[in-house]
């Protein structure tokens, strides 16, 4: 077990990890570019972009500050709403959030919406480069003497811990892995953000005075009831569970790997991957499936095929992500399901069946089975849940794949326990986890201070 306050986790990342080979799709703006883009913003009244941001960043105001050269104040405006703003700027699906709501979308189409994410990235990078983030957050309140345990060091817990720490509470984060940041460190596609950025942001939060204990699996190394006894409150920010499987024959063969597990290898481990892989198959139709497929292509796998059991219109992956995958040369096989993995110890092919809808039910087409070669299969068929861990906290209810919470406060059935992020919303985005972490912190603060 490691107890950490401030430490450079970035230096623990292997320099030869596969993700470093990806080109950054979010290059930084120069000051001049940022100011010119900021000046395009209309400074809307009651701006719709802000309404579309889950953390309600005052976008019109921060952009105006960029336009006047007041960059650090812009960063302050952003941080006051969203402590994970550096990563959000890069990983948010802005097309369907702030930028999707920008009034420029209602113009004649001659000008794109304001590049809000890139402007946010510009302001945050400036604040980090000047080492100004902590001072922009202002002074911490006097210690309240209250202790809070936060489970998992992902965006939800980090946002929650930052807010609680600034309000004078003592926070301890328990994380099973060696590195903090959650999926921001080991999940997000490398062309959007590399692991060091997720770690930099986590280090900033830890630097506020949050204690991090890595290598601690709650439920195994620490008992929930002990946490409830020792701490004044507990925050569940453990995210989703391990990669799901299909229960198809042959799934135990080598070369078949869960998508999130595979992405973790790409992002944080220094192994040569996919040597000799000529064909890879990704099973699934969500954003994780798309990410894996694009990453495999980016790492040089010649043929990457996505297998999805329904049509393109049914895929939960964003349209812009599907386009991106197509652009990267990913092949799509819609209306197909795996029925069997074949190979001797190692997977060498996959038997697929065609599917169709019959009276609204999905069925395999009899006699449609065919083999496709593959040396690697990524299973992106959803992640499991951490129901057992969560419900081990007495009173916590778990339904429909997530902890049951009051959406305004993150409160659970146990008065001392709050939850936020993927574990509470069933799996959304970093920005939702951030918003929910902060919201829970405010509610916990009210509870702890009796305010």
């Amino acid at each position, binding site marked *: 077990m490691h107890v950490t306050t401030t430490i450079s986790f970035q230096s623990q990342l292997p320099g030869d990890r596969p993700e470093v080979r990806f080109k950054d799709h979010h290059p930084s703006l120069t000051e001049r570019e940022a100011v010119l883009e900021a000046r395009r913003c209309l400074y809307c*009244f009651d701006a719709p972009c802000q309404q579309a941001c889950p953390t309600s960043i005052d976008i019109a105001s921060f952009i105006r500050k960029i336009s006047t050269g007041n960059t650090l104040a812009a960063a302050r405006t952003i941080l006051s709403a969203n402590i994970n703003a550096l990563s959000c700027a890069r990983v948010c699906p802005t097309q369907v959030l702030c930028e999707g709501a920008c009034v420029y979308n*209602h113009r004649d189409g001659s000008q794109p919406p304001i590049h809000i994410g890139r402007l946010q990235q510009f302001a945050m990078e400036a604040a980090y480069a000047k080492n100004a983030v902590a001072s922009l957050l202002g002074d911490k309140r006097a210690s309240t003497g209250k202790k809070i345990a936060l489970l998992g060091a992902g965006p939800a817990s980090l946002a929650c811990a930052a807010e609680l720490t600034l309000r004078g509470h003592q926070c301890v984060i328990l994380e099973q892995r060696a590195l903090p940041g959650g999926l921001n460190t080991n999940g997000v596609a490398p062309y959007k953000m590399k692991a060091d950025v997720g770690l930099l942001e986590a280090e900033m939060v830890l630097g506020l005075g949050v204690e991090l204990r890595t290598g601690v699996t709650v439920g195994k190394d620490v008992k929930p009831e002990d946490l409830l006894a020792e701490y004044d409150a507990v925050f569940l920010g453990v995210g989703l569970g391990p990669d799901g499987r299909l229960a198809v024959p042959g799934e135990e063969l080598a070369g078949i790997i869960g998508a999130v597990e595979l992405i973790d290898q790409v992002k944080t481990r220094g192994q040569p991957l996919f040597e000799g892989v000529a064909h890879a198959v990704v099973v699934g139709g969500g954003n994780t499936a798309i990410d894996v497929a694009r990453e495999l292509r980016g790492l040089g796998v010649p043929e990457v095929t996505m297998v999805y059991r329904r049509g393109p219109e049914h895929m939960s992956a964003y349209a812009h992500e599907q386009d991106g995958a197509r652009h990267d040369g990913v092949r799509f096989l819609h209306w197909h399901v795996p029925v069997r993995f074949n190979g001797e110890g190692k997977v060498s092919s996959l038997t697929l069946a065609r599917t169709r809808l019959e009276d609204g039910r999905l069925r395999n087409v009899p006699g449609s089975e065919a083999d496709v070669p593959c040396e690697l299969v990524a299973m992106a068929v959803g992640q499991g849940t951490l129901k057992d861990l969560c419900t081990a906290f007495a009173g916590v209810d778990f339904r429909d794949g997530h902890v049951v919470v009051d959406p305004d406060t993150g409160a659970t059935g146990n008065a001392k326990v709050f939850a936020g992020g993927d574990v509470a919303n069933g799996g959304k985005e970093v920005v939702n986890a951030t918003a929910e972490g902060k919201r829970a912190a405010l509610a916990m603060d009210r509870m702890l201070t009796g305010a």
Partner: protein
Amino acid sequence: MVDLSINLAGIKSPNPFWLASAPPANTGDQVMRAFDHGWGGAVWKTLGDQIVNVTSRFGALDVGGSKVVGFNNIELITDRPLEVNLREITEVKKRYPHHAVVVSLMVETRDEWRDIIKRSEDTGCDGLELNFGCPHGMCERGMGSAVGQEPRVLEEITGWTKEFARTPVLVKLTPNITDVRVPGRAAARAKADGLSLINTIKSIIGVDLDKMVPYPVVGTKSTNGGYCGPAVKPIAMHMVAQLAQDAQVRLPISGIGGISNWRDAAEFMALGATSVQVCTAVMHYGFRIVEDMIDGLSLFLKDKGMNSAMELVGRAVPAFSEWGQLDMNHKVIAHIDELRCIGCDLCHVACRDGSHDCIHFHKEGSAALVAQEEKIRARVGAPPAARIPYVAEDECTGCNLCSLVCPVDGCITMNDVTKNKEFQSWNDRVAQYGSAKAAVENSPRMWKDKH
């Protein structure tokens, strides 16, 4: 073909576009290249006793991403020997006999004026311009704007020059006075042949906030400069129009100040200028801008059914009147086109905070909102109907503000609702009711009490 040639007090040029007396008209090489590009005339950089300049000597005002909206300089008159300038002017006139070459002059004593006028006219130049406008450096030595600000001195010196000159004499006026008609009338009394205006405006263009020295920085100090460029155009046009209208002036005018394109030129001409002079725009973009000016003015004149540039001169002067002559019965009301509106709501906040709070939103669930939704139903990319505001017609004061801030062309129109009311000016009304107080009492109220 439209005839662009002009005749200003006997000075003829193939078109109304002249270089102002400034750096672009500093040398024979420049003036000849300008003529090759299409400029019709040039007022040579002011001649006088040789001076030396400081560095740096220019500053600029950038606004909202636009460079050099305003420009400022602390340079003096020509720093080249008089003989060199005179030799080059002779050369230019010989090579370009049909272009207008006017020599700008600034000296002190009667004898100096006699001498420099003789030597200048020996070059074959078409006219003289008396620089009574320079507001920096030279005025500290009793010349430039020091003369332009003293009508009696201006009249006396202009009188001398008229004694000595054989070619037309233009008096270049300074805007650094309270009423430009006073120096204009003084020039007219001294029998000047024409007026040029404006010279630059006394100004500080900015402050270096690190050094705590105004711009342009000369070591550890700066001084007031002369302001020009696009930002001064409204001030210059007002002065031109005032002089064009003044019965005691009645002199042809060469308009100067912020002219950058054919439209600026057309506006100055409509307000009474026969030729226009340009400095800043050429310093910014070079001589080539005249191509747009020539084409633009020709097409404009043709479009308006005018056969010559001279027909345009003074066209808008009769419509420039005193406030008391304006029609009190004229009424316009703002209207928002819901098929163009993008829902930025800038008009709402502008009218609320900066005018009369007449732009509102349809209430949720109201019949009006339903009707609005109906109206925009077929519009692709429409904003939410609830974000499209409407103008309360009984509240609108017709001030124009909303239509000025709206970012979408043609979205807010100011509709004429005068109906068949007869023209009645304020002066008419005062005459009708006997006093200003009675006139107010008998006027319809423009504003609504909202409390």
